[in-house]
């Protein structure tokens, strides 16, 4: 960490987006995580994505649980309301917040301990309810804040910094999310912002439960040889299925890849996802195929990254509940209280 505030001075040519904000305007407090933490790179990618998306910072609510990853919402979008909830319970709080005001954009940030161990249940249920959110797990395979215990996503056979081997099977959150009905599923790597930032951008624009598993090396406790979440390991085994360009609605689609190598998917908000195929025949709109592909590649020790699945026709929890388009928070007494005459009728029925 650093205790000095990051100087407000910025590059003279730093350009504002359509809203007049520079990328720096999307920053938060200075990170207190260890130097070199992958989580900080993810924060930077979130900042980039929100800037690219022309997102008014105050229209996003950022929520997290407990742990290193869950501290990060303090480090981006300083003009957004944030909520550091309790361990493993961010999904429920986010669900409630979303029910209260469907007009804000919800970003949940969690870690592998927070989502795959203590919060596995809440993770699963928020996904299967189709809460409209972007759910990022900053996955480092280790408990950082308590100094290096294995987490539930630590691969079987991987070794801790002290050389202890992990004998328990790993939980793969991507496979789980696919099985549970997430309508946007991606995996990325904190060390590859060029891949990660567009994925976050597309996820924020997605209507429905969007899940990104982001491998994020813990420099302090899980970046040694024998780890499967280290910078070196992930770089050596990274199998990206595609490269994503997000094209804002109304913007002309210009993709400079050779014909036949690009798929486009139009999302609910009109934004177009242009996917440059890196793995031949990979179809990101086929959920079953995605699950099979993942299983095959994982068996080979590869870390499959990219936009793995998207349902462009996704719906969310508000659709299922058929709630009014006005945020529930905006409804006043007139909308909500039936009044004394109705009560008189109710009384009459109870005699």
């Amino acid at each position: 960490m650093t205790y000095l505030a990051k100087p407000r001075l910025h590059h003279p040519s730093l350009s504002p987006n359509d809203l007049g904000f520079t990328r720096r305007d999307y920053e938060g407090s200075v990170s207190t995580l260890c130097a070199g933490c992958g989580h900080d790179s993810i924060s930077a990618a979130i900042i980039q994505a929100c800037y690219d998306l022309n997102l008014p910072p105050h229209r996003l609510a950022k929520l997290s649980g407990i742990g290193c990853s869950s501290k990060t919402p303090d480090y981006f979008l300083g003009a957004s309301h944030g909520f550091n909830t309790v361990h493993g319970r961010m999904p429920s709080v986010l669900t409630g917040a979303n029910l209260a005001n469907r007009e804000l954009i919800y970003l949940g940030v969690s870690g592998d301990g927070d989502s795959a161990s203590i919060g596995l249940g809440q993770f699963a249920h928020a996904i299967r309810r189709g809460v409209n959110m972007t759910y990022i797990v900053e996955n480092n395979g280790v408990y950082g804040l308590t100094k290096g215990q294995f987490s539930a996503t630590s691969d079987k056979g991987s070794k801790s910094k002290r050389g202890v081997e992990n004998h328990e099977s790993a939980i793969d959150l991507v496979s789980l999310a696919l099985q549970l009905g997430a309508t946007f599923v991606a995996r990325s790597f904190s060390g590859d912002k060029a891949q990660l930032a567009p994925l976050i951008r597309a996820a924020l624009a997605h209507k429905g439960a969007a899940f990104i598993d982001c491998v994020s090396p813990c420099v302090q406790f899980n970046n040694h040889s024998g780890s499967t979440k280290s910078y070196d390991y992930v770089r050596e085994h990274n199998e990206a299925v595609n490269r994503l360009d997000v094209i804002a609605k109304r913007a002309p689609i210009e993709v400079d890849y050779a014909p036949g190598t690009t798929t486009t998917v139009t999302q609910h908000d009109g934004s177009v996802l242009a996917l440059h195929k890196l793995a031949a025949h990979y179809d990101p709109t086929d959920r079953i195929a995605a699950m099979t592909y993942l299983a095959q590649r994982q068996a080979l020790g590869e870390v499959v990254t990219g936009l793995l699945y998207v349902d462009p026709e996704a719906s969310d929890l508000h659709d299922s509940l058929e709630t009014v388009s006005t945020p529930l928070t905006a409804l006043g007494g007139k909308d909500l209280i039936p009044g004394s005459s109705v009560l008189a009728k109710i009384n009459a029925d109870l005699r």
Partner: protein
Amino acid sequence: MSGSLNLTNDFVVKFANVNGSGSASANSMFAKSVLRMGVPVAARNIFPSNIQGLPTWYEVRVTGDGHLGRRGGVDLMVAMNPQTWDRDIAEIESGGYLFYDSTKVLPESKFRDDITVVGVPLTRICNEVYSVPRERQLFKNIIYVGALAALLGIEIEVIETLLAEQFAGKERLIKANVDALHMGRDYVRTNLTPLGLQVRRADAVGDRIYVEGNSAAALGAVYGGATVCAWYPITPSTSVVEAFTDYCAEFRIDAETGQAKYAIVQAEDEIASIGIVIGAGWNGARAFTATSGPGISLMTEFIGLSYFAEIPAVIMDVQRGGPSTGMPTRTQQADLISAAYAGHGDTKHPMLLPQDPGECFEMGALAFDLSDRLQTTVFVMLDLDIGMNEWLTEPFKWDDTRSLDRGKVMTYEDLESGVDFGRYKDVDGDGIPYRTYPGVHPSKGAYFTRGTSRNPYARYSEEGHVYVDNMQRLLRKFETAKSLIPAPELRKSKTATRTGVIYFGSTTPAMHEALEILASKGLHLDALRVRGFPFSDEVYDFIAAHDRVFVVEQNRDAQLRTLIVNEGDVDPAKLPPVLHFDGTPITARFIAAEIGTRLGATAPRSPVPEAAE
């Protein structure tokens, strides 16, 4: 038989049934028919944690004097369950009556000689008329209602009206039920004579309504402006949310679009339920959950967060018998301490203590104003007795000029005017800070909510004095809460006395009746009903003004008494506890006996024994 009880508008009928036999609605109709004759009733379900097969009882106290508490003892047993026959027979008061299905001949040893036995061959009648087994089962219940009407002097037209209301629009069903009703009546008319227990038309009900507390609390939530409800099914609170769902479907649908002005989510557990409530409360919606003791245990971490991060939430705790799974379908007032102090570290939370469904409605609505005003979790402490039984209660009232009190919330305009916003700053000296809703302003008013210590501007701080200042402010806020919680209700004895009694919640009707019993024996007590926590000064003034103050409650460890002792400067010796915790609702007889005995010389020599369950 000589010595038979002759009682008019003042007796207890108990139905012993098998769970799942469809008796509940017939029994309820019986109680309601008495009400419709202008005679108050107090009816209680005593049911197992079971869907089918285990014994269940329904106890109806016909009480022309309006004593709505459980009296204790049974004057007429409607014994429909062979499984519990022996204990049911044993429970009948001497001189009382037994009503049973005489289709099967029973040996004399199965009866008592100090009671009147009334046999109606219900099964035989059914088998003669109905061929479908399910119909036989269901109509048997209606037939005994018809028979009882004839035996007890209940006007058959009243029941016919009730049937017509219940099956409105389903003429075939109405006719079938009325036919069954008549079969029972006619059998009695032909073969038997009316009992010494009689219902006589009166005018003692007034405009009171007959409703379950859970349903009333749910309606209170509707009127309190709740828009988000998250819950996990648990007895005895489930019907709160079921009722809320029904009321919302009726009153909260946008007329133009048909869309819902509410969101109800059945969560994966109680933890997620309260998490959703807190998320919605944080974001500016009025949200609640309904649960019972085990749920409170699970929610405790989140309740602590709500206390420390100051987020409004409403929890309707319909208390049941604890600890652990305890007695899921029996009543207790045993969550007071776990609710009042839920959470690790120093925490305390306001509670509202309704005495009946009328107050469940009032407090169900008030809780939302209070939680917004105090920015914390507010408990509405129902119990199974109030929640799941229909009570005769004052009609619901609503003042149309009343608006939702959203508490201290800074708007866009406030922020724009340049006021200094500190989320945890005590601006007004009442310990309550101002908050902002997420998304309110592009550049002002955003803050980071956390369960960790922070300074008045919501910035993380572990400095000792910053933490202490914040904890002291939370205490100031709790002081402020005292003035917002409904004041206690004092019933002064007509005769001056140095003895008092404190009670709350569902104990109320039994307590009032007990006071009458005691007064008739020359024992006079001033009585104070507490209606919420934290306790206002009136509670401690009351204690100070008396030499001895009984604290009557329905738990083993005298939890209300513990709270009183813990929160104020009171000598515990001054507060003798009166405790009832067998899972059945407390009775007037029990209270009168306990207090009478403790008051020594003037006590009745042998208190009326409590009937064994």
